[in-house]
């Protein structure tokens, strides 16, 4: 590819105070190519794409469009030049339909100030048709599926005649099938000449999708290669700057005792599911979005009320316990979305870790700050939380470290049954591996662990058994070591004959 890059960076740098977050990065992005940006959290990917899109101003260096240096003072200027970034949170107006969202803020033909709904609808349908989508453009986007919402955001970018699309973790909220759909749309856009910059932590996706990969580490450009000329291990090693340790720790060696017994459990979508979790073992839970995976964990942990069935811990019925009682009994749920469900963002590490153990950290209802701080320090040490002190606000931590704070809060209750909902979502490779090893350290102490994950490969590597849910029912339980991705996928789709 000797053609002039549609977008390029030349020695692009960004300083925050004395710290150089992005250091002299020079990259070329070509039309008709999907270019992946890889790196751990804090490697500078987000800062880089923010400078490209005009969200942040570079401290040094330039951005070039068609070989001409440009300076975007705002996102709007970037969009005018055809560079559109889709942030991780899609920034749609949930109460408006796809049509309004696509054209929000754009000048429309017709009388100024008037909506011209018929034309708006037709234009929106046309935009979505370019992506092969045909859903109702007047349905509020809050009622659309995650992938449809992504399509709306893509259509919005296309309506602004994007020549360069920047996608930051677009699959974080998508299931495997939805991801496939998104990928085929992205490939279509590429083939029609769009340059796509793709940021993701999921290496497998990147290998399946991208044409070129760039690895960043500590704000510096490590290398850029055609995707075909690199391999998974090489990418990981370059990202973390050393050879990766074994990604998944060894599996359980003993059969353990059944600690948690779930019998015929039913909720809103869950229909009569029976599983058990054994001490020292990891039970994986797979299924498509909406299959009831999260609900299963929430029903067990007392977050939601079951409509039928029982949950027994060591033979004692805990079916209708409150969250507090379940935690006291030793059943602990680490929720899926750390920002929304896991953390009080404007509070410190110590406050967040302490929130799950208030009773133990107080006497007669009065907090004992020294107990709280020493608990937090212990957890920070144990989980290797990288922070200046336990009094630092969690908002200032990286995603991986925030996840560790959430884990620290729940592990402080020394659970007997640990329920983990998507424990590695949006976390870099190094931290993922740390969490896998942590899980096995816990099982070595006899904890029974249940892990829900959308990444089947993660379940295959991490779990001992995998229970697969399909439309609220248990489609099967398979031995993780002797099965493959295909089998589990078939079960996810409810094909029991597989």
């Amino acid at each position, binding site marked *: 590819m000797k053609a002039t890059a549609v977008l390029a960076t030349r020695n692009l740098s960004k300083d925050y*105070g004395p710290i150089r977050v992005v250091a002299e990065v020079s990259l070329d992005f070509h039309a008709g190519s999907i270019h992946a940006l890889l790196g751990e959290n804090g490697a*500078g990917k987000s800062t880089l794409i923010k400078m490209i899109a005009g969200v942040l101003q570079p401290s040094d260096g330039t951005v070039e469009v068609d070989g001409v240096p440009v300076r975007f003072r705002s996102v709007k200027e970037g969009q005018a030049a055809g560079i559109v970034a889709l942030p991780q949170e899609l920034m749609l107006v949930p109460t408006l339909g796809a049509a309004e969202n696509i054209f929000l803020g754009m000048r429309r033909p017709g009388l100024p100030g008037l909506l011209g709904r018929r034309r708006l609808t037709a234009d929106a349908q046309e935009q979505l048709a370019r992506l092969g989508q045909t859903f109702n453009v007047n349905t509020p986007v809050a009622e659309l599926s995650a992938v449809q919402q992504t399509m709306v955001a893509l259509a919005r970018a296309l309506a602004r005649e994007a020549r360069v699309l920047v996608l930051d973790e677009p699959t974080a909220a998508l299931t495997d099938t939805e991801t496939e759909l998104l990928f085929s749309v992205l490939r279509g856009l590429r083939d029609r000449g769009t340059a796509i910059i793709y940021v993701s932590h999921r290496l497998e996706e990147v290998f399946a999708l991208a044409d070129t990969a760039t690895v960043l580490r500590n704000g510096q450009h490590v290398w850029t290669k055609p995707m075909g000329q690199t391999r998974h291990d090489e990418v990981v090693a370059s990202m973390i700057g050393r050879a990766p340790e074994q990604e998944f720790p060894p599996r359980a060696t003993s059969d353990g005792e059944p600690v948690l017994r779930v019998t015929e459990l039913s909720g809103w979508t869950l229909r009569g599911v029976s599983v058990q979790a054994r001490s020292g073992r990891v039970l994986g839970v797979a299924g498509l979005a909406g299959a009831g995976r999260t609900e299963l964990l929430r029903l067990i942990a007392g977050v939601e009320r079951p409509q039928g069935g029982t949950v027994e811990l060591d033979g004692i019925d805990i079916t209708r316990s*409150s*969250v507090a009682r379940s935690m006291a009994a030793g059943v602990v749920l680490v929720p899926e979305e750390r920002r929304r469900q896991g953390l*009080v963002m404007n509070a410190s590490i110590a406050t967040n870790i302490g929130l799950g153990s*208030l*009773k133990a950290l107080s006497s007669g209802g009065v907090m004992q700050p020294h107990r709280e701080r020493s608990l937090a320090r212990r957890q920070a040490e144990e989980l290797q939380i990288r922070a200046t002190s336990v009094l*630092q*606000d969690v908002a200032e931590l990286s995603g991986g470290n925030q996840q560790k704070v959430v884990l620290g809060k729940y592990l402080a209750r020394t659970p007997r049954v640990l329920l983990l909902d998507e424990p590695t979502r949006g976390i870099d490779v190094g931290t993922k591996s740390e969490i896998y090893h942590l899980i096995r350290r816990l099982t070595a102490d006899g904890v029974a662990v249940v892990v829900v994950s959308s990444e089947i490969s993660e379940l295959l590597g991490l779990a001992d058994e995998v229970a697969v849910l399909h439309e609220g029912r248990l489609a099967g339980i398979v031995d993780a070591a002797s099965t493959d991705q295909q089998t589990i996928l078939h079960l996810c789709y409810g094909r029991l004959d597989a």
Partner: protein
Amino acid sequence: MTATTTAGPQRAPHRRSALPARLASYGTLLGLLVLIMLFTVLDEKGIFLTAGNFTNILEQVAVLAMVASVQTVVMVVGDFDLSVGALASLVGVLVAQLLTAGVPVVPAIAAGLAAGLLAGAINGFLVAYLGLSAFIATLAAMTSFTGLALLLSNGATIFGLPAGFVALGQGRLGPVPMPVIIALALAVMVWFVLSRTVLGRQWYAVGGNAEASRLSGVNTRAVRFSAFLVSGLGSALAGIILTARLASAHPTAGDPLMLSSIAAVFLGVTLSRVGQPTIGGTAVGLGIVGVLGNGLNLLQVNSYVQQVLTGLIIVLAVSLSQIVRRRR
């Protein structure tokens, strides 16, 4: 604590010592000092900066301080209580009616406080258990409480309260007016609960992230409910002391307390780095409201003009601190 093991750039560290950040935290406090200096200079009679006038200011804001203290609690939980002023009026009328009907002081006050608790329980139930927005629930409560106060008093002012009761509002302990002592005691209690107890921790946690708190085993409904209970009780106390101070009860006497209390808490929030209400912050907010009212009175500024100025200064203070904060 684990040492930072990753070399190289993480996020930019928070620079607490940077001047703009300092200004953001203390801008409102500075504003209070500027106000005090301004009035000292403008006040040609030299009354403003005297111990006597200082006591006056405290006395003038004492009742408001009680309401603001409990409003702080409700706002910590992430809600607000619009019914505080109307409830104070209603309880004042109730207690005055009981007293004029011959009920002794202590049972009358107890009945007033119980009514406050009941009102708080109703608000708390509507918000925490029925899931109404605090705005709707307490707006409705405010309307009904005002109606009840008017019904109970026939819309008239109630006079003829016993001296033992009036002493609560007009008496002094040494040089310090009784309402100031009561307000201070309440504020200290609220401060202690907010900053030192499990309940306070839970109030802040629910205000910060209710869902995360619930999943951490916090009974978020009970926690929100309790905040409204405190608000009801504090507003009732304020209504009783207000009635004693005026030696009369009027069905709308407490109404202005609502907006002023919310303003005081909001002014205080600007002092917090993370945007949370605190008792210390509320105290500064009260200081601004109190000094402003007192100073403008001394300068004999028309009371209508005073209202306009108060609104402007609140907007100015809050927006200044927002601007400085954004520039960080």
